[in-house]
C-alpha cells in the first residue's frame, strides 16, 4: 500500500505568541509536529503494519522542518519529503496545496492522511484541496479506519455525532482526536531515522506554472487580542456568592 502523510511543523501548544512588525515571532519558540498530524503518522504506520507497503511523510516548510520529518521517520515512517517554497512570496493554502499536488501528481497513491486542522493557522484547507487536485475522494475528521480489500470503513466525528460511512481507495482522510494514540519514537527508531531518505524539493523541481505559484489570498497584518480586564472574585458564603453571580449574569452581563 502506498501511504502518504501530510505533516506540518507548528508552534508548541504551550508557546505564548509574540507579534513583531505584524509577524509572529519565531525566535526561541519550541516547535512540534502538529498534534493532529501525529494521529495521521500513527495511523499510516498502523496501516503499513497491517497491509505492507511504504509510508512517505511530506511537509512544506524551510530546512528547520527536517527535525520534525526526522521525528516522523523515527516513529516509523519510511521516507520524508521537504517541499521548500521559501522563494515564493507569501504562499497561501492555494499555492501550498498546488505544490503538494504537483509533487504527488505522478505518484501511485492508495491513501493520504493528514491532520484535520493545523493548530497554528487553524484553516484546515490544504488536505481537502490536495484531494480535489488529485481527483480522489476525501473523508475528514475520522476517528476510526478499517480497510478490508476494496472496502474502507470509516467513522467520522461530525460536531460530536458519529457518522459511519463506506468508501473505496484511493482516498484522502483527515484525522481527528480519538483515532489512535500516537507512539513515541523509540531509541532504535531514532538511530534508524538518521539513515532514512529525506528528499529536499525546491519550487523549480515542481512542474508549476505562474498561475499555480500565485497566492489567492493575502495576510494584511497579525495582532494580539486586547488583554482582558481583571475579573471579579465573588465574596461571602456560598449562598451569597451564588446569589450575586445570578444577579450579575442577569443584570450586569445580561447573558441569561
Amino acid at each position, binding site marked *: 500500500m502506498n501511504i502518504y502523510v501530510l505533516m506540518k511543523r507548528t508552534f508548541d501548544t504551550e508557546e505564548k505568541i509574540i507579534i513583531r512588525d505584524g509577524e509572529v515571532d519565531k525566535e526561541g519558540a519550541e516547535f512540534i509536529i502538529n498534534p493532529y498530524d501525529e494521529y495521521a503518522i500513527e495511523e499510516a504506520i498502523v496501516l503499513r503494519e497491517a497491509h505492507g507497503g511504504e509510508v512517505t511523510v511530506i511537509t512544506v516548510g524551510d530546512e528547520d522542518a527536517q527535525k520534525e520529518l526526522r521525528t516522523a521517520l523515527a516513529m516509523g515512517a519510511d521516507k520524508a519529503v521537504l517541499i521548500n517554497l521559501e522563494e515564493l512570496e507569501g504562499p497561501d493554502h492555494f499555492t501550498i496545496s498546488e505544490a503538494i499536488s504537483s509533487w504527488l501528481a505522478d505518484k501511485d497513491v492508495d491513501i493520504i492522511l493528514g491532520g484535520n486542522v493545523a493548530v497554528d493557522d487553524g484553516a484546515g*484547507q490544504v488536505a481537502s484541496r490536495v484531494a480535489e487536485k488529485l481527483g480522489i475522494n476525501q473523508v475528514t*475528521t475520522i476517528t476510526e479506519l478499517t480497510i478490508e480489500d476494496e472496502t474502507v470503513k470509516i467513522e467520522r466525528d461530525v460536531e460530536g455525532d458519529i457518522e459511519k460511512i*463506506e468508501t473505496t481507495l484511493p482516498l484522502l482522510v483527515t484525522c481527528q482526536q480519538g483515532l489512535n494514540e500516537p507512539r513515541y519514537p523509540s531509541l532504535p527508531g531514532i538511530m534508524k531515522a538518521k539513515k532514512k531518505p529525506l528528499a529536499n524539493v525546491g519550487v523549480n523541481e515542481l512542474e508549476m506554472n505562474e498561475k499555480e505559484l500565485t497566492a489567492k489570498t493575502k495576510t494584511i497584518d497579525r*495582532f*494580539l487580542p486586547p488583554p482582558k480586564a481583571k475579573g471579579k472574585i465573588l465574596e461571602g458564603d456560598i449562598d451569597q456568592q451564588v446569589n450575586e*453571580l445570578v444577579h450579575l449574569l442577569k443584570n450586569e452581563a445580561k447573558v441569561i
Partner: protein
Amino acid sequence: MEKKVLVLGEIKDGNLRNVSLEAIACAKQIRNDGEITGVLFGNHAKDCAETMIHYGADRILIAENPELSHYTTDAYTQALMQIINKESPHAVVFGHTAKGKDLAPRLAAKLGVGLVSDAVEIEMNNGRAIYTRAIYSGKAFERVTVTEGIELVSVRPNNMKALKKDTSRNGPVTAFDPEIKNLRTIVKEIVNKTRGGGDLSEAKIIVAGGRGVKSKEGFRPLEELAEVLGGAVGASRGACDAEYCDYSMQIGQTGKVVTPDLYIAAGISGAIQHLAGMSQSKIVVAINKDPEAPIFDVADYGIVGDLFDIVPKLTAELKKILV
C-alpha cells in the same frame, strides 16, 4: 460595483442553523447592493427558504434531490459547482461547520480560488472585504483579503451578528435539479453522541468541566446546570484524558474553539491550551478550589470553592428565575 453573493444555508433537524443567518449578514457586507442568493439542499429546503429571506436573502435556490438529503463531499460539491457555474457569483459564504469545513476547501480547489476559513469579522475597505480570523487558536488574530478570483469565506458560528428578522420581506424560491453522479461515499449510519444540549460551536451558553469533576458521574451536576440554562456541556482535555467524558466534548487548542455568550468553567485550572479554545467567550465564569488557578485570569466572575457545592446551588437558583 454590485456583487452577487451566494450563501449556503445549513439545515439541522429541520431548521435553518443560526450560522446561516450570520453568513447572510456577512454576505450583505460584501454585496454592495448586489443580490444575495440563498442555496438550500435536501429535505426541508423549502421550509427554510422563507427564513433565509426574512433574514436578508433576496432569492433562494433549492435542490431536493435524494442524494442531497445527507451531506457527502461529492454530492454537495457537484450541486454547488453547477450553481456557481450558472450564477457566476463574486463570493460564496459558508458556515465554518462540519459541512463548511469539508466542502469549502474542496470547492476552492476545484475553482482554483482563495478561501478565508473561520472568519470572525468582516470590514469593507474601498469595496474590498477584509476578514479577521483567529490564528494559534485565538492566541492571535490576522486580517486577510482575497486578491483575485471568486471569494470563498466560511464564518465562525456566534461571531457575526445576524440581521434583524423582517417578515415583510419576500423573494422568489426556485427549484433546480442538479445532476449528481458517481458518489464515492455511502453514509451507513449516524450515531447521536452529543450530550447536554448539542453542538458546542453554536451554543450560546457552555458549561464545561475539567479534572475537578473527578468522574463520569461528576459531570451530572454540570449537565443539570446546562439544561436549566439551555446550554451545551464541554470539557477540558484533562477531563477527556481521564475518561470522564468523550473527546467530542473537548474545548481547547486541540479540540473545539468556542465563543459562546456565557462560558462556565467548573473544576478547570485553565492550561494555556484550554484558554486558547475559550478565552474569546463574551462572559467567562470560573469555579475552582484553587484561587491561583490561571482560569481566574480570563474570568469575568470567579468563585473560589468546591464545584460540587456551588454548581447545584447555582442550578437551583437559576431554576427559580428561568423555569
